[in-house]
């Protein structure tokens, strides 16, 4: 499903250049559950952004479902994000003034059109049927992250990318979030790639990729 060939990413930092990724080769099969681990500054977030088509590599090729998305322009990348990729962020990234339902509907807004029934179904899937009209500020961190997961899954994307989804949560609600994500993977065959610092969480996954200084240093099957 995903194939990275010799991906590099260089950010211009004034006169100097900052190389974040140096020659990453990676392939991930449909339906895999992958954890990416590594110290901060290792380039794992940049890798996730590239996988999520939020950014383009400086060099190298990225194939997503057979298409070379590294050659896509901004508009085409937006299309890919809207249809094929769901994001879950560490900081939830919900719109604070919208209700849980409106936030989930936003997930469909650019993917063909808002559909209330689908949004309610997604909220039910994460166990928040009774919090539909609450705003993010009226919810706990765990609930907010579940809304964010509902927003990611409402358009039924083949790929969900999660950037430290439990980083801002206590261990109990973090556990809830992980169990929702892993069950989504198990039930719907969604490909799930997750950055985490937590070795316990990483061991729920099928494969762990370790990154350091912009390179994959090791991979292990669980």
């Amino acid at each position, binding site marked *: 499903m995903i194939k990275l060939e010799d991906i590099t990413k260089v950010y211009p930092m004034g006169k100097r250049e900052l190389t974040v990724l140096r020659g990453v080769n990676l392939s991930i099969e449909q339906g895999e559950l992958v954890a990416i681990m590594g110290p901060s500054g290792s380039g794992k977030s940049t890798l996730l*952004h590239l996988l*999520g088509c*939020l*950014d383009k590599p400086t060099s190298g090729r990225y194939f997503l479902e057979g298409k070379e998305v590294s050659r896509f322009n*901004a*508009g085409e990348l*937006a*299309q*890919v*994000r*809207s*249809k094929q*990729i769901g*994001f879950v*962020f560490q900081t939830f*990234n*919900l*719109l604070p*003034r*919208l209700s849980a339902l*409106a936030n989930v509907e*936003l*997930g469909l*807004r*650019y*993917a063909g*059109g*808002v559909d209330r029934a689908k949004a309610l179904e997604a909220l039910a899937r994460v166990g928040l049927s009774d919090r539909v009209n609450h705003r993010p500020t009226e919810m706990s961190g765990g609930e907010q992250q579940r809304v964010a997961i509902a*927003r990611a899954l409402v358009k039924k994307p083949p790929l969900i990318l999660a950037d430290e989804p439990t980083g801002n949560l206590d261990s109990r609600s973090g556990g809830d979030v992980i169990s929702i994500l892993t069950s989504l993977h198990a039930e719907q065959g969604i490909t799930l790639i997750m950055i985490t610092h937590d070795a316990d969480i990483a061991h729920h996954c099928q494969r762990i990729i370790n990154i350091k200084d912009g390179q994959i240093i090791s991979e292990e099957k669980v």
Partner: protein
Amino acid sequence: MKKLFEPLTTAWTGVITHKLRSFLTILGIVIGVAAVITLMSVGRGAEAQVISNIQNLGSNLVTVRPGASTFGGVRGAIGGIRTLTMEDAQAIDEQVPNISAVAPSYVSNLQLIVGSKNTNAQVNGVTPEYLQVNNLKIASGSSFSGQDYERGTKVAVLGSGIAQTLFGDTNPIGQQIRMGNIIVYVTGVMQSKGAMFGSPDDTILIPLTAMQQAVAQPRTPQGGRIVSTITLTVSDQSHTQNVIDAITNLLRTRHKLAPSADNDFNIMSVEEIANTLSEALGTMTLLLGAIAAISLLVGGIGVMNIMLVSVLERTREIGIRKALGARNRDIWTQFLIEAGFLTLTGGIIGVTFGWGASYIINSLDVMTTLVSPDIVILAVSVSVGIGLFFGFYPAWNASRLNPIDALRSE
């Protein structure tokens, strides 16, 4: 349909979630539009008022005055010379077609004495047709007849203003006025025509034949009896220009003017005066509107300012939307629709206020105001245009944000 409504609902949500800010943003537009509507309605009202005053004179009225001739390069003042005669009036009546009535008059400023009161007024020696031609109506008493004119009966019809000056609250009918060396009896008082320049309210009408007994009517070297003006009515307004041309030709021939010489008379139609004045007032209205439009422009800059702040403040929202798959186009249409929506709302509120203000001004009897639909449509569409114009740059700025940078912003 969904495709069409979703950006609108998104914009609506954006507007109502920032109520105070939205209100302040549109305040400038509201004030600008209200100012445009109010000032334009005042201008249009004044225009309509003046036109109706002039039309009141009789829209078919044409006035011929002496003057506008040149003597050795010096242009004589209108009325400063005496070229029109009773005979000219007669010739016009007999030879020019499409005229319903001709009324020559001779004006003189005379001293009037009523009891112990002593005043000066414009006395108009006229033929019986004069009242009809000038659209003057009798309020009380009666006018004088053709017979009175033939006999040179010493009777007078007073303008409402001069009647008040001379007789106050007492009934002037049947009273006598000493006028030079004759005494005239008042037979009627005219309806007021309203205050304006050269209002007939302040004149006295007497038969021209009686006038000749009070003052010597001067004669031209050829023996023609001089008149001050010749007024006439055209049978149909569409003939006005033909009549003016015919009179011009006739008078030039009668006055034996060389082809190169200027006219020694001046012809004006009420229609023409109305057109000139309405043009001048139209320019004034436009000027008022333009001044008000400046405030609309300032309001537009306010919209741009707020939109720029709004984009900055919502950078993260833009990042989230982009991560969810929004294209640049989705982002800038969102902000553009939001700006257009804000200013449209402002425009509609402004029209309401402006309309209300002009209604109040009208009902306070300060000025006549007239709100015309074209101004309303113009003001509303201009305010939307301002929203789109001044919203464009912020919207474009928003759409260009890099999704990752936008997501990272706090």
